[in-house]
Protein backbone atom coordinates (compact mmCIF):
# COMPACT_ATOMS: atom_id res chain seq x y z
CA UNK A 1 0.00 0.00 0.00
CA UNK A 2 1.58 3.24 -1.12
CA UNK A 3 1.16 6.31 1.01
CA UNK A 4 0.21 9.75 -0.17
CA UNK A 5 2.80 12.48 -0.10
CA UNK A 6 0.31 15.14 0.91
CA UNK A 7 1.73 17.76 3.20
CA UNK A 8 0.26 17.92 6.71
CA UNK A 9 -1.99 14.98 5.95
CA UNK A 10 -2.83 12.33 8.50
CA UNK A 11 -3.36 8.67 7.69
CA UNK A 12 -7.09 9.18 8.16
CA UNK A 13 -7.05 12.16 5.79
CA UNK A 14 -5.21 10.11 3.22
CA UNK A 15 -7.42 7.07 3.63
CA UNK A 16 -10.70 9.01 3.38
CA UNK A 17 -9.41 10.78 0.29
CA UNK A 18 -8.92 7.59 -1.71
CA UNK A 19 -11.26 7.38 -4.67
CA UNK A 20 -13.91 4.79 -3.88
CA UNK A 21 -13.90 5.46 -0.14
CA UNK A 22 -16.67 8.07 -0.25
CA UNK A 23 -18.98 5.90 1.85
CA UNK A 24 -16.70 6.22 4.87
CA UNK A 25 -17.11 8.90 7.49
CA UNK A 26 -14.36 10.30 9.65
CA UNK A 27 -13.94 8.65 13.02
CA UNK A 28 -12.75 11.25 15.56
CA UNK A 29 -9.33 10.48 17.00
CA UNK A 30 -10.68 10.61 20.55
CA UNK A 31 -13.10 7.82 19.64
CA UNK A 32 -10.25 5.78 18.20
CA UNK A 33 -8.10 6.37 21.27
CA UNK A 34 -10.77 5.31 23.75
CA UNK A 35 -9.77 1.77 24.78
CA UNK A 36 -13.42 0.90 25.35
CA UNK A 37 -14.05 1.25 21.62
CA UNK A 38 -11.13 -1.05 20.87
CA UNK A 39 -12.52 -3.90 22.96
CA UNK A 40 -12.07 -7.25 21.32
CA UNK A 41 -10.09 -5.97 18.36
CA UNK A 42 -6.73 -7.57 17.73
CA UNK A 43 -4.11 -5.01 16.91
CA UNK A 44 -0.51 -4.02 17.23
CA UNK A 45 0.34 -0.71 18.82
CA UNK A 46 2.26 0.16 15.65
CA UNK A 47 -0.96 0.06 13.63
CA UNK A 48 -2.70 2.34 16.10
CA UNK A 49 0.29 4.69 15.95
CA UNK A 50 0.04 4.93 12.17
CA UNK A 51 -3.70 5.62 12.23
CA UNK A 52 -3.37 8.31 14.88
CA UNK A 53 -0.27 9.92 13.42
CA UNK A 54 -1.20 13.54 12.67
CA UNK A 55 1.17 13.86 9.75
CA UNK A 56 2.03 10.93 7.52
CA UNK A 57 4.97 11.08 5.17
CA UNK A 58 7.61 8.90 3.63
CA UNK A 59 9.61 8.90 6.85
CA UNK A 60 6.87 6.93 8.58
CA UNK A 61 8.23 3.96 6.69
CA UNK A 62 6.40 0.84 5.74
CA UNK A 63 2.77 0.64 6.73
CA UNK A 64 1.83 -2.60 8.42
CA UNK A 65 -1.03 -3.33 6.04
CA UNK A 66 -3.80 -3.89 8.57
CA UNK A 67 -4.55 -0.22 9.15
CA UNK A 68 -7.49 -0.38 6.74
CA UNK A 69 -9.03 -3.37 8.49
CA UNK A 70 -8.52 -1.94 11.93
CA UNK A 71 -9.95 1.46 11.00
CA UNK A 72 -12.85 -0.31 9.31
CA UNK A 73 -13.80 -2.27 12.40
CA UNK A 74 -13.62 0.89 14.53
CA UNK A 75 -15.69 2.61 11.86
CA UNK A 76 -18.39 -0.07 12.14
CA UNK A 77 -18.71 0.71 15.84
CA UNK A 78 -18.52 4.46 15.46
CA UNK A 79 -21.37 4.71 12.96
CA UNK A 80 -23.66 3.08 15.51
CA UNK A 81 -22.77 5.62 18.17
CA UNK A 82 -24.62 8.87 18.72
CA UNK A 83 -22.05 10.95 16.89
CA UNK A 84 -21.66 8.38 14.15
CA UNK A 85 -25.37 8.21 13.43
CA UNK A 86 -25.53 11.98 13.11
CA UNK A 87 -22.58 11.97 10.72
CA UNK A 88 -24.10 9.15 8.66
CA UNK A 89 -27.45 10.94 8.62
CA UNK A 90 -25.75 13.94 7.07
CA UNK A 91 -24.16 11.76 4.43
CA UNK A 92 -27.45 9.98 3.79
CA UNK A 93 -29.36 13.21 3.26
CA UNK A 94 -26.60 14.43 0.95
CA UNK A 95 -26.96 11.30 -1.15
CA UNK A 96 -23.39 10.15 -0.58
CA UNK A 97 -24.42 6.49 -0.65
CA UNK A 98 -26.28 6.68 -3.94
CA UNK A 99 -29.89 5.97 -4.77
CA UNK A 100 -32.01 2.88 -5.27
CA UNK A 101 -31.77 1.54 -8.85
CA UNK A 102 -35.36 0.30 -8.76
CA UNK A 103 -37.43 2.71 -10.83
CA UNK A 104 -40.42 2.31 -8.50
CA UNK A 105 -38.39 3.77 -5.63
CA UNK A 106 -37.99 7.04 -7.49
CA UNK A 107 -34.29 7.45 -6.67
CA UNK A 108 -34.73 6.89 -2.94
CA UNK A 109 -31.54 7.59 -1.01
CA UNK A 110 -29.84 4.46 0.27
CA UNK A 111 -27.57 3.43 3.14
CA UNK A 112 -24.48 1.22 3.13
CA UNK A 113 -24.85 -2.27 4.54
CA UNK A 114 -22.55 -5.22 4.96
CA UNK A 115 -23.73 -8.75 4.33
CA UNK A 116 -21.50 -9.97 7.15
CA UNK A 117 -19.89 -8.52 10.26
CA UNK A 118 -16.77 -10.57 9.58
CA UNK A 119 -13.92 -8.98 7.65
CA UNK A 120 -13.08 -10.26 4.19
CA UNK A 121 -16.44 -11.87 3.37
CA UNK A 122 -17.88 -9.46 0.81
CA UNK A 123 -17.82 -5.84 -0.27
CA UNK A 124 -20.26 -3.21 0.93
CA UNK A 125 -23.77 -3.12 -0.51
CA UNK A 126 -26.47 -0.46 -0.39
CA UNK A 127 -29.85 -0.85 1.29
CA UNK A 128 -33.03 0.86 0.13
CA UNK A 129 -35.48 1.55 2.97
CA UNK A 130 -38.39 1.75 0.56
CA UNK A 131 -38.23 -1.64 -1.17
CA UNK A 132 -36.10 -3.08 1.65
CA UNK A 133 -33.68 -4.76 -0.71
CA UNK A 134 -29.92 -4.77 -0.95
CA UNK A 135 -28.13 -3.77 -4.14
CA UNK A 136 -24.65 -3.58 -5.54
CA UNK A 137 -23.59 0.07 -5.42
CA UNK A 138 -23.08 1.81 -8.75
CA UNK A 139 -19.85 3.42 -7.72
CA UNK A 140 -16.85 1.15 -7.97
CA UNK A 141 -16.16 0.78 -4.28
CA UNK A 142 -14.11 -2.03 -2.83
CA UNK A 143 -14.79 -1.27 0.81
CA UNK A 144 -15.37 -4.29 2.99
CA UNK A 145 -18.95 -4.74 4.16
CA UNK A 146 -17.76 -5.28 7.73
CA UNK A 147 -16.84 -1.59 7.85
CA UNK A 148 -20.58 -0.94 8.13
CA UNK A 149 -22.03 -4.24 9.32
CA UNK A 150 -25.35 -5.94 8.60
CA UNK A 151 -27.27 -4.10 11.32
CA UNK A 152 -26.49 -0.54 10.36
CA UNK A 153 -29.56 0.40 8.24
CA UNK A 154 -31.96 -1.08 10.78
CA UNK A 155 -30.26 0.68 13.68
CA UNK A 156 -30.28 3.89 11.67
CA UNK A 157 -34.02 3.78 10.97
CA UNK A 158 -34.91 2.49 14.41
CA UNK A 159 -33.27 5.49 16.03
CA UNK A 160 -34.31 7.98 13.35
CA UNK A 161 -37.81 6.67 12.52
CA UNK A 162 -38.96 9.83 10.77
CA UNK A 163 -36.63 9.02 7.92
CA UNK A 164 -38.44 5.82 7.00
CA UNK A 165 -40.17 6.40 3.70
CA UNK A 166 -43.89 5.78 3.37
CA UNK A 167 -44.38 2.24 2.17
CA UNK A 168 -44.77 2.11 -1.58
CA UNK A 169 -44.82 -1.45 -2.80
CA UNK A 170 -42.79 -1.38 -6.01
CA UNK A 171 -44.55 -4.48 -7.30
CA UNK A 172 -48.05 -3.01 -7.46
Amino acid at each position, binding site marked *: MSSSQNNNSSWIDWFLGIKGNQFLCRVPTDYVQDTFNQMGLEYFSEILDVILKPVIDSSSGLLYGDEKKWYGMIHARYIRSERGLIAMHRKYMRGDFGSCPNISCDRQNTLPVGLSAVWGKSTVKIHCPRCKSNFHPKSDTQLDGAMFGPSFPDIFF*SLLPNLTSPLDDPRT
Partner: protein
Amino acid sequence: MSCPRSIEIPDGSWIDWFLGIKGHEFSCRVPNEYIQDKFNLTGLEFDSQTLEVVLDPEFDNEDWDCAEEKKLYGMIHARYIVSPRGIEDMRLKYERGDFGSCPRVFCKRQKVLPVGLHDVWDKAQVKIYCPSCNNVYIPLPHNGMLDGAMFGTSFPHMFFMQLPSLIPSPPVEKYIPRIYGFQLHKKALMPPESAESPPIKVESSVSKSPSWLRNVPNF
Protein backbone atom coordinates in the same frame (compact mmCIF):
# COMPACT_ATOMS: atom_id res chain seq x y z
CA MET B 1 -27.39 17.34 -31.09
CA SER B 2 -24.34 17.23 -33.32
CA CYS B 3 -22.34 14.14 -34.07
CA PRO B 4 -18.96 14.11 -32.35
CA ARG B 5 -16.32 14.82 -34.97
CA SER B 6 -13.60 13.22 -32.88
CA ILE B 7 -14.84 9.73 -33.68
CA GLU B 8 -13.20 8.93 -37.01
CA ILE B 9 -14.30 5.68 -38.59
CA PRO B 10 -12.74 5.61 -42.07
CA ASP B 11 -14.95 4.06 -44.77
CA GLY B 12 -17.54 3.15 -42.18
CA SER B 13 -21.27 3.27 -42.63
CA TRP B 14 -23.58 5.41 -40.56
CA ILE B 15 -24.71 2.29 -38.70
CA ASP B 16 -21.08 1.37 -37.97
CA TRP B 17 -20.57 4.86 -36.59
CA PHE B 18 -23.75 4.81 -34.54
CA LEU B 19 -23.10 1.39 -33.01
CA GLY B 20 -19.53 2.39 -32.22
CA ILE B 21 -20.49 5.34 -30.05
CA LYS B 22 -19.52 4.79 -26.44
CA GLY B 23 -22.67 4.20 -24.43
CA HIS B 24 -24.52 2.51 -27.29
CA GLU B 25 -23.50 -1.02 -26.31
CA PHE B 26 -27.14 -2.03 -25.82
CA SER B 27 -27.84 -1.41 -29.51
CA CYS B 28 -28.06 -4.26 -31.96
CA ARG B 29 -27.16 -4.09 -35.64
CA VAL B 30 -30.23 -4.01 -37.87
CA PRO B 31 -29.49 -5.59 -41.27
CA ASN B 32 -29.79 -3.24 -44.25
CA GLU B 33 -32.35 -5.44 -45.97
CA TYR B 34 -34.59 -5.19 -42.93
CA ILE B 35 -34.39 -1.39 -43.08
CA GLN B 36 -34.97 -1.35 -46.83
CA ASP B 37 -38.11 -3.46 -46.57
CA LYS B 38 -40.97 -0.95 -46.75
CA PHE B 39 -43.13 -3.18 -44.59
CA ASN B 40 -40.82 -2.56 -41.65
CA LEU B 41 -41.15 1.19 -42.12
CA THR B 42 -44.94 1.23 -42.01
CA GLY B 43 -46.29 4.06 -39.92
CA LEU B 44 -42.94 5.76 -39.39
CA GLU B 45 -42.58 9.39 -40.43
CA PHE B 46 -39.24 10.31 -41.96
CA ASP B 47 -37.60 12.11 -44.87
CA SER B 48 -36.11 10.03 -47.65
CA GLN B 49 -32.86 11.88 -46.99
CA THR B 50 -32.84 10.58 -43.40
CA LEU B 51 -33.23 7.02 -44.64
CA GLU B 52 -30.40 7.56 -47.13
CA VAL B 53 -28.06 8.66 -44.35
CA VAL B 54 -28.92 5.63 -42.22
CA LEU B 55 -28.19 3.35 -45.18
CA ASP B 56 -25.09 5.33 -46.23
CA PRO B 57 -22.26 2.78 -46.65
CA GLU B 58 -19.60 5.49 -46.48
CA PHE B 59 -20.64 7.92 -43.79
CA ASP B 60 -17.99 10.63 -43.71
CA ASN B 61 -19.03 11.90 -40.30
CA GLU B 62 -20.00 15.41 -41.32
CA ASP B 63 -20.65 17.50 -38.28
CA TRP B 64 -24.40 17.73 -38.57
CA ASP B 65 -27.39 16.94 -36.43
CA CYS B 66 -28.11 13.21 -36.51
CA ALA B 67 -31.17 13.39 -34.28
CA GLU B 68 -33.61 12.34 -37.00
CA GLU B 69 -31.39 9.48 -38.14
CA LYS B 70 -31.04 8.20 -34.60
CA LYS B 71 -34.77 8.35 -34.10
CA LEU B 72 -35.51 6.52 -37.34
CA TYR B 73 -32.91 3.84 -36.67
CA GLY B 74 -34.16 3.55 -33.09
CA MET B 75 -37.77 2.99 -34.08
CA ILE B 76 -36.74 0.42 -36.68
CA HIS B 77 -34.50 -1.17 -34.06
CA ALA B 78 -37.47 -1.57 -31.73
CA ARG B 79 -39.27 -3.56 -34.41
CA TYR B 80 -36.25 -5.60 -35.45
CA ILE B 81 -35.44 -6.87 -31.96
CA VAL B 82 -38.87 -8.49 -31.62
CA SER B 83 -38.48 -10.23 -35.00
CA PRO B 84 -37.13 -13.80 -35.04
CA ARG B 85 -33.70 -12.68 -36.24
CA GLY B 86 -33.64 -9.77 -33.82
CA ILE B 87 -34.49 -11.95 -30.85
CA GLU B 88 -31.67 -14.29 -31.80
CA ASP B 89 -29.24 -11.35 -31.99
CA MET B 90 -30.43 -10.07 -28.65
CA ARG B 91 -30.11 -13.54 -27.15
CA LEU B 92 -26.44 -13.56 -28.08
CA LYS B 93 -25.96 -10.15 -26.49
CA TYR B 94 -27.90 -11.25 -23.40
CA GLU B 95 -25.85 -14.42 -22.94
CA ARG B 96 -22.68 -12.39 -23.42
CA GLY B 97 -23.78 -10.06 -20.64
CA ASP B 98 -23.88 -6.97 -22.85
CA PHE B 99 -26.86 -5.58 -20.93
CA GLY B 100 -25.30 -5.98 -17.51
CA SER B 101 -26.64 -7.71 -14.45
CA CYS B 102 -29.30 -7.07 -11.85
CA PRO B 103 -28.12 -4.70 -9.11
CA ARG B 104 -30.17 -6.56 -6.52
CA VAL B 105 -27.88 -8.62 -4.33
CA PHE B 106 -30.08 -11.71 -4.06
CA CYS B 107 -30.50 -11.98 -7.83
CA LYS B 108 -26.87 -13.08 -7.81
CA ARG B 109 -25.74 -11.15 -10.87
CA GLN B 110 -28.65 -12.36 -12.99
CA LYS B 111 -28.32 -11.07 -16.55
CA VAL B 112 -30.85 -8.43 -17.56
CA LEU B 113 -32.52 -7.16 -20.72
CA PRO B 114 -33.12 -3.60 -21.92
CA VAL B 115 -36.66 -2.28 -21.71
CA GLY B 116 -38.38 0.99 -22.50
CA LEU B 117 -40.99 2.53 -20.26
CA HIS B 118 -42.70 3.98 -23.34
CA ASP B 119 -42.99 3.12 -27.01
CA VAL B 120 -42.95 6.81 -27.91
CA TRP B 121 -39.67 8.59 -28.62
CA ASP B 122 -38.20 11.14 -26.19
CA LYS B 123 -40.18 10.05 -23.14
CA ALA B 124 -37.57 8.27 -21.04
CA GLN B 125 -34.19 6.62 -21.35
CA VAL B 126 -33.71 2.88 -21.55
CA LYS B 127 -34.06 0.81 -18.39
CA ILE B 128 -33.08 -2.76 -17.56
CA TYR B 129 -35.44 -5.59 -16.70
CA CYS B 130 -34.46 -8.46 -14.43
CA PRO B 131 -36.27 -11.74 -15.22
CA SER B 132 -35.40 -13.08 -11.77
CA CYS B 133 -37.09 -10.51 -9.54
CA ASN B 134 -39.31 -9.11 -12.32
CA ASN B 135 -38.33 -5.56 -11.54
CA VAL B 136 -37.10 -2.68 -13.65
CA TYR B 137 -33.97 -0.75 -12.76
CA ILE B 138 -31.97 2.24 -13.86
CA PRO B 139 -28.89 0.93 -15.69
CA LEU B 140 -25.38 2.13 -14.98
CA PRO B 141 -24.90 5.72 -16.15
CA HIS B 142 -22.76 4.89 -19.16
CA ASN B 143 -25.39 2.46 -20.46
CA GLY B 144 -28.48 4.52 -19.91
CA MET B 145 -28.18 7.18 -22.60
CA LEU B 146 -30.25 5.53 -25.32
CA ASP B 147 -33.92 6.30 -25.72
CA GLY B 148 -36.18 3.64 -24.23
CA ALA B 149 -38.32 3.58 -27.36
CA MET B 150 -35.40 1.94 -29.18
CA PHE B 151 -36.31 -1.22 -27.28
CA GLY B 152 -39.94 -0.68 -26.41
CA THR B 153 -42.11 -1.88 -23.56
CA SER B 154 -42.75 -5.34 -24.99
CA PHE B 155 -39.26 -6.57 -25.77
CA PRO B 156 -38.24 -8.53 -22.62
CA HIS B 157 -41.55 -10.33 -22.47
CA MET B 158 -41.53 -11.18 -26.18
CA PHE B 159 -37.98 -12.42 -25.67
CA PHE B 160 -38.92 -14.87 -22.93
CA MET B 161 -42.05 -15.99 -24.75
CA GLN B 162 -39.82 -17.03 -27.63
CA LEU B 163 -37.08 -18.46 -25.40
CA PRO B 164 -38.85 -19.82 -22.30
CA SER B 165 -35.89 -22.03 -21.44
CA LEU B 166 -33.94 -18.88 -20.56
CA ILE B 167 -36.40 -17.83 -17.85
CA PRO B 168 -34.52 -18.08 -14.55
CA SER B 169 -36.03 -19.34 -11.34
CA PRO B 170 -37.08 -16.61 -8.89
CA PRO B 171 -34.69 -15.79 -6.04
CA VAL B 172 -35.20 -17.80 -2.89
CA GLU B 173 -33.40 -15.54 -0.46
CA LYS B 174 -35.04 -12.47 0.98
CA TYR B 175 -33.51 -9.69 3.02
CA ILE B 176 -34.39 -10.07 6.68
CA PRO B 177 -33.78 -6.91 8.72
CA ARG B 178 -31.75 -7.69 11.82
CA ILE B 179 -30.12 -5.73 14.58
CA TYR B 180 -27.25 -7.64 16.16
CA GLY B 181 -28.72 -10.81 14.75
CA PHE B 182 -32.24 -10.31 16.10
CA GLN B 183 -35.13 -9.95 13.68
CA LEU B 184 -37.13 -6.76 13.81
CA HIS B 185 -40.83 -6.65 14.58
CA LYS B 186 -42.99 -5.71 11.62
CA LYS B 187 -44.02 -2.53 13.37
CA ALA B 188 -40.43 -1.34 13.48
CA LEU B 189 -40.33 -1.36 9.70
CA MET B 190 -43.40 0.85 9.31
CA PRO B 191 -43.02 4.61 8.92
CA PRO B 192 -44.41 6.83 11.65
CA GLU B 193 -48.14 7.33 11.28
CA SER B 194 -47.74 11.06 10.74
CA ALA B 195 -44.51 11.36 8.82
CA GLU B 196 -44.73 15.15 8.67
CA SER B 197 -44.61 15.91 12.37
CA PRO B 198 -41.96 14.60 14.75
CA PRO B 199 -43.14 11.98 17.24
CA ILE B 200 -44.73 13.44 20.35
CA LYS B 201 -42.52 12.86 23.37
CA VAL B 202 -44.55 11.28 26.14
CA GLU B 203 -43.37 12.56 29.52
CA SER B 204 -43.15 9.23 31.25
CA SER B 205 -40.27 7.51 32.96
CA VAL B 206 -41.12 4.27 31.18
CA SER B 207 -41.12 5.58 27.62
CA LYS B 208 -38.42 8.14 28.20
CA SER B 209 -36.09 8.13 25.25
CA PRO B 210 -32.34 7.77 25.80
CA SER B 211 -30.77 11.03 26.87
CA TRP B 212 -28.47 11.23 23.88
CA LEU B 213 -31.37 10.79 21.48
CA ARG B 214 -32.77 14.12 22.63
CA ASN B 215 -29.66 15.73 21.19
CA VAL B 216 -30.42 14.38 17.73
CA PRO B 217 -31.56 17.22 15.47
CA ASN B 218 -35.31 17.54 15.11
CA PHE B 219 -36.16 16.43 11.57
